[in-house]
């Protein structure tokens, strides 16, 4: 999966976004922790919130959930303001903020009951449904203090899903999970995003995780929006992708490539029999024929792709990631 250049076009007159940030700022003293941040999350989308340490991700998430006051701007959840219509807005949200915290001396089930008693509509059938959805049956009556972090994470998702939210906000959802758990979580989130039409906002420091899970990323730094990109499912979408050729004679190959019209030969690691060029799809058959005629043996042709990590470092100037 790679990044395309543009964000998904905003559908004019389309349905209301599940989450809309409108010029949200958090000012403490004279410092702007979050500065005029705006973005939307729509139904069925999984959006990654990325940013280096101290970029304001956690502050942003806490403003969305009403844990901290918004200094300027507004957050709307399914059209309702988290400030002026808190109850109507927050009832649409399920969230885990930082670590999933529970009452350690109670069982997982008792904790879920605590959450259920704070809703208007959650029945014991719904609790049972969520329990089996997350595979929590066995640990249900153990005290939470005996839970592994992975179990706690699942219990966290369970409580977040109880009241059938329209928006799920997850801070570091795969934190503390083993590889199988991460994969399971990812598949599960993708599934509910589609089947329940839930919008999911995920912040994570695992960029590869975000890359595999999200349909779009929002990158912030110093409290400001840096970029907003869709993550495509297919190729890079570039017209002239960068290709890495592995051949037996790179010097010869370079001569051939340079003689071809339209093809640009770039640097390659010749010692490792590699050469990099840019070519459009239509130019490829001719390129391959020319190399064969010059008796250059082609071992491999691969597209060089920038990973999300590379792009991220480019956007944020190489700061460390939270």
């Amino acid at each position, binding site marked *: 999966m790679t990044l395309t250049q543009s964000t998904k076009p905003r559908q004019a007159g389309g349905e209301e976004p599940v989450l809309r940030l409108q010029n949200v700022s958090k000012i403490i003293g004279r410092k702007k922790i979050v500065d005029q941040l705006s973005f939307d999350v729509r139904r069925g989308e999984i959006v990654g919130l990325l940013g280096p340490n101290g970029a304001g991700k956690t502050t942003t998430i806490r403003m969305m*959930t009403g844990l901290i006051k918004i200094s300027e701007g507004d957050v709307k959840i399914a059209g309702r303001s988290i400030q002026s219509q808190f109850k109507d807005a927050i009832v649409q949200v399920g969230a885990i903020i930082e670590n999933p915290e529970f009452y350690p001396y109670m069982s997982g089930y008792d904790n879920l009951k605590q*959450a259920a008693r704070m809703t208007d509509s959650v029945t014991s059938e719904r609790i049972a449904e969520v329990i089996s959805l997350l595979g929590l049956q066995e640990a249900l009556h153990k005290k939470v203090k005996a839970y592994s972090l992975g179990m706690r994470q699942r219990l966290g998702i369970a409580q977040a899903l109880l009241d059938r939210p329209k928006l799920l906000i997850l801070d570091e959802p795969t934190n503390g999970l083993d590889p199988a758990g991460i994969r399971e979580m990812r598949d599960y989130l993708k599934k509910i995003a589609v089947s329940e039409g839930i919008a999911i906002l995920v912040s994570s420091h695992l960029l590869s995780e975000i890359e595999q899970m999200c349909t779009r990323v929002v990158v912030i730094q110093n409290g400001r929006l840096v970029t907003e990109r869709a993550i495509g499912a297919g190729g890079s979408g570039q017209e002239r992708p960068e290709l890495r050729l592995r051949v037996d004679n790179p010097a010869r190959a370079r001569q051939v490539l340079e003689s071809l019209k339209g093809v640009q030969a770039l640097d390659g690691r010749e010692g490792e029999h590699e050469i990099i060029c840019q070519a459009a799809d239509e130019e490829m058959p001719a390129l391959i024929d020319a190399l064969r005629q010059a008796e250059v043996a082609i071992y491999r042709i691969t597209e060089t792709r920038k990973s999300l990590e590379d792009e991220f470092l480019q956007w944020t100037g190489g700061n460390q990631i939270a």
Partner: protein
Amino acid sequence: MRNGIRLIQNEWLKLTKKRSFWVPVSMMVLIAAMVTFMLYKFSSNLSEIDSAAAYLSGMMGASGLGQFVAILSIVGTAGIVAQEHAQGTIKFLLIRSRSRGEIFAAKYAAAVLYTLLMTLIAGVSMYAASGFMFGFGGTGAQWLDVLKESAYGLVYSIVYVTLAFMVGALTRSTGVAIGVGLAGTMFGSLMIFKDFYKYVLFPNVNLSVYDTVGPPLPGMSIGFSLVVLAVYMALFLVAGYTVFRRRDVA
């Protein structure tokens, strides 16, 4: 209404599901039994106590075991707000479709219920213990006194529980809340013979004195004390609520 009751139920379960819940409860039972026994064994002026009811009417107020009830209730409930911050569960609590005001009110209601329970346990334990020594009976007038003294004792405990509750909400520290609450119960016996002191909380908290030794300072009456207490309680709750409602939970 149903929502409010379910919130209070949540708070009550948080208080009582802890294993440490049984510590103050068993301490209350033990202290009640021990104090009753010691008094019976070693006190010289027991002639006027002829029934469990007579004994209880002397012991349920702040001058009797009321102070213990207050102390144990403070210890049991001081963490009701602070613990949520310490455990991080405050986030679990505040991102629901319930206002901070409702949550704060439910927490206070649970603290008051806890104090009621402690008062009840003190009463029942002392009744059981003293019944064996003085007989389980009592006249109607004596039982009326028991009720009155219990109400005085309850007012005493609830005032200090409210103080500790506010401090817990302001400082988010269970230790500070317990410390201030306990210090309060100690200041109760301190008397400054100046006119302004009658407007201070401490000389007004123990209402039993109006039936025994009389007003602590000139110009005080039970009605005066009740008004002063109501003003202080309102102040504590408004201060606690204002901070709880406005706080950024980081």
